[in-house]
């Protein structure tokens, strides 16, 4: 197993974030990790990437114990956080060198991978531009390729499609599939359920720090009458009539089709 979390618990003060979570992932598996806001996804990711110690439980990555060998664990992980800042006073080339060297990559290999990555992600012409001038999507590309520079056996992606355009998103989805085909494990956290459905082999649904579902995409789909991951997620985590709520909200804006007529002459509700 590449990832083994056994009965992991973590609390922030009196508030529990994870309550006895157990997760395992094999080489070549793309694992979708889903949950509503505050479910404990980011806490799991931090514990898995050895940047946070659990209160209880055992965490093993690539056979290494995260508590006793955090540096060893970090060297086997490529991590793209959900909200990540970059050193914007650096160029993508400088930042890539910085990350690659801390992973102790051979200089020639690092330069070769850096060149290839910059070209493939469309950043070749911007390789010597300060990242302060980059768009959100360009910065996300830098985060993604620098996380993969050392070709890690485990890739942790937390909302990796943030800010990416459609083409870059397609590229990333293909990269994930090909990494998995070559035996890399991908731990994929996202709120985009349709993407998870397409990209992942297995799905875990988390709520209030507890695992509610863990199985293949088909297994989890079968938990809902609608036969979709979206349906299963909604049934398990909220049991809310979203259609009814949406209707109520739109109703609160004005009276059905009349408001469209009003808007042609003036905006309703204005003096």
């Amino acid at each position, binding site marked *: 197993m590449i990832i083994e979390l056994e009965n992991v618990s973590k609390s922030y003060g009196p508030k529990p974030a994870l309550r006895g979570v157990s997760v395992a992932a094999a080489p070549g598996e793309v694992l979708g990790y889903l949950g509503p806001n505050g479910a404990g996804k980011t806490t799991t990711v931090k514990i898995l*990437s050895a*940047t946070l110690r659990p209160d209880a439980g055992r965490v093993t990555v690539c056979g290494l114990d995260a508590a006793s060998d*955090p540096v060893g664990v970090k060297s086997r992980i490529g991590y793209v956080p959900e909200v990540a800042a970059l050193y914007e*006073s650096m*160029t993508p080339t400088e930042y890539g*060198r910085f990350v690659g060297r801390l992973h102790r990559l051979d200089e020639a290999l690092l330069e070769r991978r850096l060149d290839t990555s910059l070209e493939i992600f469309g950043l070749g012409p911007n390789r*010597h*531009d300060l990242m302060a001038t980059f768009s959100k999507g360009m910065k996300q590309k830098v985060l993604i390729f620098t996380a993969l520079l050392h070709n890690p056996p485990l890739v942790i992606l937390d909302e990796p499609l943030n800010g990416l355009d459609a083409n870059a998103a397609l590229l990333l989805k293909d990269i994930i599939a090909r990494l998995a085909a070559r035996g890399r494990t991908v731990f994929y956290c996202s709120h985009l359920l349709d993407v998870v459905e397409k990209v992942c082999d297995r799905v875990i649904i988390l709520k209030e720090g507890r695992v509610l579902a863990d199985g293949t995409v088909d297994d989890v789909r079968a938990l809902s009458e609608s036969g979709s991951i979206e349906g299963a997620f909604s049934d398990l985590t909220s049991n809310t009539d979203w259609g009814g709520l949406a209707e109520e909200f739109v109703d609160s804006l004005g009276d059905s089709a009349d408001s469209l007529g009003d808007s042609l002459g003036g905006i309703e509700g204005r003096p």
Partner: protein
Amino acid sequence: MKRLFDMSQYGTLLAAGLRLSLTGSRGEATDQAGAGEDGSRHLLGAAYSLTLSTIVAALLFTSASPGQFLFFTTSLSMVFTATAVIGELAGGLFHPLDLAVTGHLPVSGFTRFVARFTELVAALLVLTLNLNLTPAILFGFMATSASGPLLGAAAPFVVLAAGFCAALFTAGVCLVVYSLLARVLTTAQFQGALLYLNIFVSLAILGLLCNIGRLIKASATVTDGAGGDQLLFPPAWFSGSVLALLGLPGGTSASVLFAAVGLCAALLPLLAVAVGSESLLSALSGSRRAARAKSAPGTMMGLFEKLFVRADEKTAFEFTAVHLARDRGFRLKAYPILGVPILMMVISLFESKDPLFFILLLYLMNLYLPLVVSFLPFGDHFRAGWIFDALPAERPGSFARGAEKAFVYRIMLPLGLLNAVALSVFLSPVAGPLHALFAFLGGLFVVGARFRKLVAYPFSREFRGVVTNDFTGVLFGSLVIFTALAWFQLSTSRSLPLFVGLIAAMALLHKVRYRVLSRQCAPTVDPHGEGR
């Protein structure tokens, strides 16, 4: 029909703008990715300007005439207003992202302009009060003794009114310069220009404080109102107006005329800039052209790297060297600190030829170095410091050594060279550089010790002030070491071979120190990253 001005929208925009400006969170509100500022920094800034104006006014109160007093306090107020307008007020009020936040809302350009202009005037009022309150009160006492209690009671209000006019004049001139620069330069160049302007002004203020006695003597022709020099110095227009209105010596009707004409001349372009702020914002947004950096380390840096930087220190060396040169926040804090001893050296070089004096100056410069090192963990892009938690930084000790060498390369070496050149000119072509080298090697001991005490990776934390109790220990230790070194330096420099031998021994000691350190790991950084 489209309304030109909407009072309700104006009120909403003004309330939101004032709240964001006064709490210092405007940057955060408009730029989610930006570093943002907290309100305490604005309060600190206000306290700083109030304290500085109080110190200057107190210094002048006993030694200057009423005319000189007002001229210098008005000058200081105008210089501070200029830095505030260019550095913060304009940066906040004319933030390009303002357009992104409110641009799509159905608010007329005129309503937006009136709100923005009111906000600027309110900010200037607060600034004027901070900078002129103490001088106005003290000037009231001066006017009472010169013209009686009635005029003495009125004087502070006249000074505050003149101070506000001077602030409006300064803001007008600065905003015209600001808008011109914003249109001509790229964002990076523009921010760089503002940074160096801020550093220059900080040093100018220090220079003014160091030489206030000489300046008072030299300013007689400006402040007595008799010569035409008054025309050349805008602060004299406003200080002279106060004197003229209160019937005190030094004020002429010409001063009032200059002040009135100057104010109108500055206000017209100020209005034009404010009216055209939409296009200025668009220009600023559009000017975010890519700023390019060098593709590889320069020749000098490459040479230094080859000679002194080990392979495992290279990452930290390049990372720190890049940020020492490019991190705006660090430069803004560190450069004025280093400027103080340089300024003192420049001023003093022309006054003394005593070797003891020069050596003391060298060690004064060294004393500032640990303080600059203390700023190293803080940076504008501190949020990017998460990367240190996520990466397998197994030997933080090597990172500290690499960072130290970058500090030597970027900060200490240029200072050392500057000292060597200055001392070779003013002391002796042989002894001067040797003295500079000795002080450089001495400074390296203290800087090295300070680096061992750093508890975070460079540029990975938000600046919340330097830990003073930690720093006091280093400063005390530095003083003891530097006193001993200065004594050694002075007593051994009489014999050239002995002096050169001592320098060689110190260099050897550093080599041994680096060798010992390279076998150690600094224990201060938690491998889990939670201690960052």
